[in-house]
């Protein structure tokens, strides 16, 4: 069989610098999926963009060929005229991008954006194009294709937008689909469904797929062949089973080791001791009023409802859920950044045997003390550090605000926390832009540590990082917790990350906790359909254990579609029941 796409010795560079894609060669067979794996900066995205010739203006292809076409009809895409290349784009090769939120024009109706492909390449008249688009919309899983056709992107959730993107890529029935991290921005259950959809469509139409990803679990579920890239070069390539089963190259093995995994082995459930609580949320709810515009009554949106969370001193409590589950609202309330609805209370106890403080009813002095004792680490290290402050200023500013120490003492402290997080004190004079993503997250952790807090709230601290960097940051957080005796409230959407660091996990969905248990119990004996769906949706880097889409579908729907005894009646949720000691599940008795 001849390959559909044959990339030979491709090199791409910017300006006069060395190549960022260096001598890359691989083939894609018709009807097969080839996964391009690597971390950010590995050149995988540039490589796949060069196939469509939509590289940034400043990038130049320095050498190589990209032959595309079945059998002997192949032609070198790099040699085509701009006009013939446009005929290939969207028609024979199409692409899905990473961020469905931003990859669709917000001002045009979905139907119009998808039908444009047919108008361009098939010269279809609007009614015919509309018919074809409606059929494709139905195929990619829109329950009401007509509504989707007339909808604007901002009226759709991320998963739905990505389906629309897929419809756009599929509507002209291309020979090759390039999917650039198509599910990275999506929740894990949505990811499972979107991956399943791409696979189904591929079987129906016989198209080939290039799947760009950093997630070995996704690879195992999707790909026949794998190309592992690092720093612009191909490290290893071959059949997925072989590469994933027995990685020959050191870099692939390293990627494997870094990937967080849900543990397979069961450990006995131990009831957590709740004697000395550092943080105690009781009956916390939060309702927002959203202006409906004009003279309409404001809408009431419930961000979280009746949440009880208790964090024992020195432990880590993880709150897991998808976007919109209310987990961040809980964290903000816990830190006093937001008032809970009347009836909810948050208590904080700075040290064993010390007096409990009511977080939402503090005196001025208590508030100042609380702000020292409780700190936060944010999700995005690229925007949570001021680009105009040197590291030293960023690290000493909290101490200045609280009037701690002399100038020299503050400087010494800054140098000390830098050492704690594994950075060198001679970096104090630098600006944040001189650091990589992982180093910046170390800086934000250092900044949180300068005030010697006892409680750290981590809001998705590793979501913006590469797998291997994520691994380092988690190790660092564990290390610091054990050394300094910190307690963590750890917010994440990723069960696998949480499996490693948490002592107790609360799974949230639509503002309520649906299941809560120590991680071993939760992963070995999940009871709630939503928890089961989350676990099932987690892609495993093992070709023999594909995602069970049925299990995902059962739990990932809205709460009124959950099976008895877990179903919500309208907005009325069942109570949290303690099934085993320390294992809470929201179900009818």
């Amino acid at each position, binding site marked *: 069989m001849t390959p559909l796409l044959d990339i030979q010795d491709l090199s791409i560079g910017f300006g006069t610098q060395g190549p960022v894609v260096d001598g890359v060669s691989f083939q894609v067979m018709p009807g097969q999926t080839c996964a391009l794996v690597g971390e950010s900066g590995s050149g995988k995205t540039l490589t796949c963009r060069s196939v*469509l010739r*939509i590289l940034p203006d400043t990038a130049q292809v320095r050498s190589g060929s990209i032959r595309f076409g079945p059998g002997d009809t192949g032609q070198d895409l790099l040699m085509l005229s701009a006009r013939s290349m446009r005929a290939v784009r969207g028609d024979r090769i199409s692409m899905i991008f990473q961020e469905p939120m931003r*990859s669709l024009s917000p*001002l045009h109706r979905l139907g119009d954006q998808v039908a*444009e492909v047919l108008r361009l390449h098939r010269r279809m008249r609007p009614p015919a194009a509309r018919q074809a688009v409606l059929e494709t919309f139905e195929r990619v899983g829109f329950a009401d294709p007509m509504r989707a056709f007339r909808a604007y992107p*901002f009226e759709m959730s991320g998963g739905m937008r990505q389906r629309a993107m897929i419809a756009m890529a599929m509507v002209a029935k291309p020979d090759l689909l390039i999917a650039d991290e198509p599910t990275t921005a999506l929740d894990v259950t949505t990811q499972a469904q979107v991956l399943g959809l791409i696979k189904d469509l591929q079987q129906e139409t016989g198209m080939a797929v290039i799947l760009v990803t950093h997630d070995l679990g996704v690879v195992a579920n999707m790909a026949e062949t794998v190309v592992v890239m690092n720093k612009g070069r191909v490290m290893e390539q071959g059949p997925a089973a072989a590469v994933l089963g027995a990685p020959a190259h050191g870099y692939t093995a390293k990627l494997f080791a870094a990937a967080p995994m849900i543990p397979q082995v069961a450990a006995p459930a131990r009831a957590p001791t709740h004697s000395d609580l550092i943080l105690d949320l009781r009956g916390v709810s939060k309702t927002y009023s959203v202006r409906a*515009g*004009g003279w309409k009554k404001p*809408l009431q949106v419930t961000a979280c409802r009746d949440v009880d969370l208790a964090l024992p001193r020195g432990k880590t409590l993880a709150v897991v859920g998808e976007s919109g589950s209310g987990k961040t609202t809980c964290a903000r309330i816990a830190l006093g950044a937001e008032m809970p609805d009347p009836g909810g209370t948050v208590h904080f106890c700075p040290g064993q045997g010390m007096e409990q403080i009511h977080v939402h009813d503090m005196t001025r002095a208590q508030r100042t003390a609380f702000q020292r004792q409780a700190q936060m680490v944010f999700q995005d290290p690229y925007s949570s550090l001021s680009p105009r402050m040197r590291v030293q200023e960023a690290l000493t500013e909290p101490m200045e605000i609280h009037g701690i120490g002399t100038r020299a003492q503050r400087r010494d402290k800054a140098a000390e926390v830098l050492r704690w997080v594994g950075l060198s004190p001679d970096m104090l004079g630098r600006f944040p832009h001189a650091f990589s993503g992982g180093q910046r997250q170390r800086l934000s952790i250092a900044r949180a540590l300068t005030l010697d807090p006892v409680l750290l709230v981590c809001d998705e601290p590793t979501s913006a990082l590469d797998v291997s960097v994520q691994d380092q940051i988690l190790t660092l957080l564990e290390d610091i917790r054990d050394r300094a005796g910190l307690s963590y409230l750890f917010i994440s959407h990723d069960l696998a990350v949480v499996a490693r660091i948490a002592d107790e996990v609360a799974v949230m969905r639509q503002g309520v906790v649906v299941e809560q248990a120590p991680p071993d119990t939760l992963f070995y004996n999940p009871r709630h359909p939503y928890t089961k769906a989350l676990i099932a949706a987690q892609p495993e880097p093992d070709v023999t254990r594909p995602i069970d889409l049925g299990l995902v579908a059962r739990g990932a729907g809205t709460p009124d579609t959950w099976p008895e005894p877990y179903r919500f009646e309208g907005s009325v949720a069942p109570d949290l029941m303690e099934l085993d000691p320390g294992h809470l599940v929201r179900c009818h008795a």
Partner: protein
Amino acid sequence: MMFLRYAVYRFVTMLLTLVVVSVMVFVIINLPPGDYLSNQIAELRATGQAEGVAKAEFLRTEYALDRPLWEQYLIWAGFAPGPQGFSGLIQGNFGWSFEFDRPVGEIVGDALWLTVLVNLAAVLFVYVVALPLGVVAAARSETWVDYSAAFVGYLGLATPNFLLALILFYYGHKYFDLPIGGLMDPIYEGEPMSWPKVKSILIHMIVPTFVIGTSGAAAMMQRLRANMLDELSKPYVETARAKGLAPAKLLAKYPLRMAFNPFVADIGNLLPAMVSGSVLVSVVLGLQTIGPFLLAALKSQDQFLAGFVLMFVALLTLIGTMISDMLLVLLDPRIRYGARGQ
């Protein structure tokens, strides 16, 4: 239907805003101590002209200047009856100009619609010039096209308007036989509308439009270019490229539509900026707009004239913002369905 309701809502809020503005205008005009008449009376007393004092005193009661400020306001606006009953802005009586000793309505009459005409022409000029230049400068950013557009733009921003006016008058007259100064040939002044008069006005407007519009066009062009550059780097542009759209069509359909929002939203700001910015130009060019009246009235505390001109500018601004708001609603579905999106 939804749009109609929004339009009504917007119109009502505009009227309310206008009332608030009128209060502020009135208060600010009355902030300096004294008024035109009391100044005049003091001056007359000092020079011993008693009969003049009597007339001024009469005007003071006639225009209720001897009453408390809030009553003066209500009478001026037409909310309360004055010495002549209800006779304020609402009833179409704009007051008396002490400086010119004539009713305000009579003084500004012609100037009003000439102001509107000149400024509309200037706004049109701004958009016609800035739109293509801004788009081309962004699409060909950092090439000679971009640089020369920027150069011309900065030149337009940096040259003082009245200087530009003088230069254009000189060369316009020398090479194209354009008329100098005024908004129409003096023979048509006070004449009823006729074809030759319209023609005369149009020819006279060429230079003023250019002068008043240049700096606005230059600023607008730079803003559009910056907006376009922002939009061009967004992922949806890449999606459109990957679809196989030709560059020109892509530019017009996607990023331009997005970059258009600030462009439209600026209509409201543009109008008052031009009216007040063109005061000096009007003086230099001898245009019969309300600019020179405003200047004179503010200098001599001629409060009814100044108040009326300020209210007129405020009305232009409010109408401008209302138009731009309604256009935005038509253009951008995210604003139209604001409540349903995030």
